């Protein structure tokens, strides 16, 4: 009994050390999205290629899509752009949200670098951005065929990120085809 008592400080230390060690490995910039498993917020925003036309949340119904928040002022968007080109080639449906950007610059960018997006709508003021909980670009959302947000990634999407996101994407595609 007396011996056991002597170990109490050591046990406390060990517990604390394990907790702190766990904290060390966490990336503090990764925030859980508040919108996971919630429907895509309602919006009505102009099509980049045809500003007269308004696109709404209905463009997500019926297919599994990625929603990529990008802008020409965002250097990381340029970094991930080739990867999205490759994904589009493989048949992944990517919807673009041109975030707080200027239309002519965006069109020029697509002309020069290629357009991986099935559809692009323009959020000039960042209003939908706030509804989506966007705090920068790039951000990418995975949206299922019912228009529900299923996953979110902040930052560049690349091979490593796609390993996990892609697996979820394929699973959602399978789910949508099963019905």
């Amino acid at each position: 009994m007396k011996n056991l008592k002597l170990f109490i400080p050591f046990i406390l230390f060990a517990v604390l050390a394990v907790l702190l060690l766990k904290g060390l490995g966490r990336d503090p910039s990764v925030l859980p999205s508040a919108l996971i498993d919630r429907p895509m917020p309602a919006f009505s925003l102009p099509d980049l290629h045809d500003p007269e036309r308004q696109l709404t949340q209905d463009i997500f119904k019926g297919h599994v899509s990625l929603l990529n928040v990008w802008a020409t002022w965002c250097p990381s968007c340029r970094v991930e752009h080739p990867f999205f080109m490759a994904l589009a080639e493989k048949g992944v449906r990517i919807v673009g949200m041109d975030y707080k950007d200027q239309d002519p610059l965006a069109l020029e960018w697509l002309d020069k670098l290629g357009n991986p997006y099935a559809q692009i709508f323009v959020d000039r003021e960042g209003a939908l951005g706030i509804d989506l909980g966007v705090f920068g670009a790039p951000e990418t959302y995975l949206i299922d065929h019912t228009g529900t947000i299923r996953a979110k990634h902040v930052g560049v999407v690349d091979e490593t990120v796609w390993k996990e996101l892609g697996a979820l994407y394929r699973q959602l595609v399978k789910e949508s085809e099963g019905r």
Partner: protein
Amino acid sequence: MFFLKISRINKLFKAFSMAFWLFGAAHTMAVIEIAPLSSAELEARYRLLIEELRCPKCQNQNLSDSDSPIAADLREQIRVLLEDGKSDEEVVAYLVDRYGDFVRYRPAVQTNTLVLWFAPAAFVVLALIAVLLVVRGHQRAKNRTMALSLEEQRRLDSLLSSPSKSGDEHL
């Protein structure tokens, strides 16, 4: 050498903060707004809200201190909501709905924050209990050594009254 450097940096820092102070309350002037809200009451609530809400982009700055574009957008959005007659709670709920609990510098009391809120009090109680136990243990130990049995007392008395005659000769 090392200390000299530190003191120099310290002096520089002091000079800078003095300058900021002289040029008018650096802290509260961190953000330059376009126009004040329609009433002083709204303005006061707005100031308080942007102090207590955290910028989602910048990890450890509130909306008031941050210069990031998203912080500016959110400040603007809060102004709109306040002018619309939304209560403080509704404004906070609006942001938590979109950006999660992360944006609150004052976390709500809910199941996943119970530890955060009550662990400190629990630790204080535990510490008090520990102190009490230790003190009581000491007292008990003291009482035990002080109380001599009858036999011991008799021996002690005889030792004290005739030091040289008893067995132990130290000198």
